[in-house]
């Protein structure tokens, strides 16, 4: 049975891009970042990624089978959710964390809402928020890059939040380390260069558009530059962009088709909201990093944004 439920403004002409093609392309564009993550944090990161993907696919198949829906486990969307979730986990988590997280992402955040295209929240991020609320202890232990004995350390953002350091250079990191990913953090979020390469591929293929990333990063960078803890106009823009999970969140999760607005204007509003919220959470919130929560909050608003921005129908005259 073909699913005839489309959510889109007119015109409804369909291109050649199909869901599986898009999903697998996003999936492959993420692989370099994962490879670097495995190199930096060791083989355990690989097992976490694989477990997460396998659980996501199995859960999708199981629930679609139980609900007697069409089984679409090979369209890449479940695999992508699993991959993104794993990228959002520290490499020190016990192996049951990715399994439970993937199950939650697919079963509750996606299939309980009706499956692909009907979920309100990004499944991978919803699962991350769930894991964070359940087991904060495991979710905030980050191992140091290239450490054999799995030494753990707080991330740079946590150290700054706690007031232990005021600039990342104090723990002997430089911009190049941040750019290549040689820092503590989640498996897939540290390798900024690899993530950017993947993002450029997706932009080149026009799978994602620049509206959300630019407005997201622009608003966050501007706010962190102006309202720095050291004083006005003293913020470190590059640091605010390359730390935490920003690049991963901006290019690969905020741009999710299902959970972001449909129009270009809507996407810009969505990105601006994400940027402002991320800044507010990083600066005033209880957590050191706010990318995932701000995207989740704006997910809830994206259908409202679509209602606000009405597209002019083709040929429609302005009524004043």
């Amino acid at each position, binding site marked *: 049975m073909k699913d005839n439920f489309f959510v889109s403004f007119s015109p409804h002409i369909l291109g050649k891009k199909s869901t599986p093609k898009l999903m697998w392309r996003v999936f492959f564009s993420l692989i370099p970042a994962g490879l670097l993550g495995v190199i930096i944090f060791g083989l355990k990161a690989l097992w976490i990624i694989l477990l997460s993907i396998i659980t996501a696919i199995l859960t999708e198949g199981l629930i679609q089978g139980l609900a007697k829906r069409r089984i679409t486990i090979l369209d890449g969307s479940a695999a992508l959710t699993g991959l993104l979730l794993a990228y959002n986990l520290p490499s020190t988590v016990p192996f049951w964390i990715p399994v439970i997280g993937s199950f939650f992402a697919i079963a*509750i955040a996606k299939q*309980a809402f009706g499956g692909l295209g009907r979920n309100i929240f990004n499944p991978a991020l919803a699962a991350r928020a*769930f894991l964070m*609320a*359940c*087991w*904060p202890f495991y979710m905030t232990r980050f191992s140091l890059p290239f450490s054999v004995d799995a030494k753990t350390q707080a991330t740079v953002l946590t150290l700054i939040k706690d007031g232990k350091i005021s600039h990342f250079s104090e723990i002997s990191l430089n911009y190049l380390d941040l750019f290549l990913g040689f820092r503590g953090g989640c498996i897939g979020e540290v390798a900024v260069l690899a993530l950017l390469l993947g993002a450029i591929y997706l932009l080149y293929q026009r799978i994602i558009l620049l509206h959300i990333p630019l407005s997201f990063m622009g608003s966050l960078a501007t706010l962190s530059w102006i309202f720095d803890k050291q004083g006005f106009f003293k913020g470190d823009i590059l640091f605010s962009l390359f730390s935490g999970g920003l690049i991963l969140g901006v290019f690969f999760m905020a741009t999710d088709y299902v959970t972001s607005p449909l129009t270009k204007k809507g996407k810009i509003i969505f990105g601006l909201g994400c940027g402002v919220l991320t800044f507010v959470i990083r600066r005033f919130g209880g957590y050191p990093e706010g990318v995932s929560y701000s995207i989740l909050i704006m997910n809830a608003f994206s259908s409202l944004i679509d209602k606000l921005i009405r597209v002019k129908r083709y040929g429609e005259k302005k009524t004043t």
Partner: protein
Amino acid sequence: MERKRPLKEFLKGLFRENPVFVIILGLCPALAVSTSVENALGMGVAVTFVLLFSNLIISSLRRVIPEKIRIPCFIVVIASFVTITDLLMKGFFPLVSRGLGIFVPLIVVNCIIMGRAEAYASKNPIFLSVLDGLGMGLGFTLALVVISMVREVLGAGTFLGFLLAKGFRPLTVMILPSGALLTLGLLMGGINLIKKKR
């Protein structure tokens, strides 16, 4: 008017018109105190007691209470029984009372009790009203116990305070408010699914 069967009036509160899962009333206490089975039982018994007696009194006074000021009259009756319950619980079950805290006095404004007084007890004979109150109260207790069972077992790894399994890492979120809403949503979804299949 058709004659109402007593047994049916009693049973409807438990399942077909369950106040929490079907009528969706009294969610505030249902979500707030369902962190442990013990609290849920205490709350359920307190609400059932108040519901039973407020229905009894309001039903017997239904021809005396003037239409225009019926709500204040209901509240006077309900508040009296809530005060009795509150003092009884403080005296005999101080631990449960402390665990429930503000939610015992708040039974006064519990929508289930007001709802049954307005929709049922003020229009029906005493015997049926008592059965209705008892059924609704037990239905509320049942719903609370089910929700709290899920939350306590998953969120704390215990049941009625007893540790279930060693080495289990509890899902802290289930004890938090978001866990309450998650549990309620999933349970209601499940109930709707079962209903649809019939």
